[in-house]
């Protein structure tokens, strides 16, 4: 079945990973059964986001459309909306990734309004790292979804290990909020509960590729196969790729 990885990263100098050439990244996707991957930076959360967006753009050009880039910005930068506009309108990026913990910004910080408003204006989703307080709890992020009902908000880890119940509450509360089941941040048995609770329409899958070695990606996809095979085919299609297509508007 076709698979869109809704959560992956092209690594760089952060964590001493080193840059991964695009062909190598695509090779890992091939080995893991991933057709298309939404890719974010890692370095952009720590260093210069504009430079990181440009690097991401260069790498994506080599991927024949298989990598769909999301930009990041420093939400406190008063020109952040211009960088979002440049990435979406000029470079063809399809969304925004914010990592509130690493970027040191709460989703409730007033500066996030500009990011949210620009995303609404450009009709692109924002995917957030979530599951790790104090700046990345699902309901903090979903609060933004409540403030901007036209904003597409994706909880990038579905609450992670301990806050999955909060992620479920957030998605139930706000219709513009969905979850990405990002690998084994949450135990597989709990992921099953979440899907049953929320329904397949609210769920996408992600590997968090870029962290760890190739084994990590393959492992996470295998985990999804093991989990999703028990759901009706129509639901599997939704979670593996259809929901992603709708979110990305591609």
């Amino acid at each position, binding site marked *: 079945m076709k698979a869109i990885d809704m959560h992956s990263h092209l690594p760089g100098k952060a*964590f001493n990973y080193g840059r991964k050439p695009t062909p190598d990244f695509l090779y890992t996707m091939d080995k893991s059964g991933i057709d298309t991957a939404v890719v974010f930076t890692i370095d952009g959360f720590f260093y210069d986001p504009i430079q990181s967006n440009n690097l991401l753009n260069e790498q994506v050009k080599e991927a024949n459309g298989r990598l769909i880039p999301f930009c990041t910005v420093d939400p406190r930068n008063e020109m952040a909306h211009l960088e979002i506009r440049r990435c979406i309108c000029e470079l063809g990026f399809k969304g925004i990734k914010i990592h509130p*913990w690493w970027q040191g910004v709460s989703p409730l910080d007033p500066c996030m309004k500009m990011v949210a408003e620009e995303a609404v204006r450009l009709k692109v989703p924002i995917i957030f790292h979530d*599951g*790790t*307080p104090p700046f990345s709890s699902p309901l903090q992020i979903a609060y933004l979804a409540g403030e901007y009902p036209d904003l597409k908000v994706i909880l990038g880890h579905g609450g*992670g*290990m*301990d806050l999955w119940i909060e992620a479920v509450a957030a998605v139930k509360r706000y219709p513009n909020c969905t979850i990405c089941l990002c690998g*084994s*941040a949450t*135990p*597989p*048995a*709990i992921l099953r*509960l979440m899907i049953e609770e929320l329904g397949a329409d609210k769920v996408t899958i992600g590997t968090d590729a870029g962290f*760890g*070695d190739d*084994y*990590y990606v393959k*492992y996470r996809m*295998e*985990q999804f196969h*093991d989990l999703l095979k028990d759901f009706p085919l129509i639901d599997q299609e939704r979670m593996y790729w259809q929901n992603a297509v709708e979110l990305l508007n591609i």
Partner: protein
Amino acid sequence: MNNQNIFDAHITLGPSQYFDINPDTVLQLMDQNNIEKALISPSDQWMAVDNTIGNRKIAKYVNDWPERFLGYASVNPWYGEKACLELERALGDGLCAIKVNPLRQGFILLEKICAPIFEIANQYKLIVYVVTGIGVLSMPLQLSEIARRYPEAIFIMGRSGWSDFHLMDFIPSVQQSPNIYVETAYNFPETLNTVIQTIGLDRVLFSSDAPFSNTRMEIEKIRNLNVDALGSRNIFYGNIIQLLNEKKI
């Protein structure tokens, strides 16, 4: 290689909010995955409130399947003196280690109500499995501090800080406390290989965290570590056996 003995250092049994895990299910899972033995733990409700019921159940399972199960006792420290008495009783009833879950039992690892439990563990040189990775309540460096206070006890860092304390805190906290062992559930080969490079593999224990994680994949993961056959055998079996043989109660 695939037929090697496996000892699972942490499986949960009993009723909880979301699952009801009975011994037959667990034994089936163990058989399917060639797991010879497991340390089994009481589930949420049994840890949080119904300690005696849970400990008796776990002891019964251990008694019914002595070749397959060893058991963790768990008591909620908020019961104070009663908790200590129940712990002593459960240990006398055949359970051999302690499980602590600050999230379910409602305390910060460093709070003084926990001290009597750790003192018992220290006195008897017991294994204490502590769920970690929970912000505020149970973080790797908190466990490391506890391990330094109670150097005779052996602590298993449950979940090894997953997540996201596995990124930075996990390895230094283990490095500074030689009486902390790490469990393999959830963390990936890359991190586990770094742990092994840093502290050696003698303090690495296989666990599946069944039924929450995927047992088959947790086992396969260990086979992808950069360790030789002996190292793999020790992670799967030898290290926990040695630990259990060293305990004195």
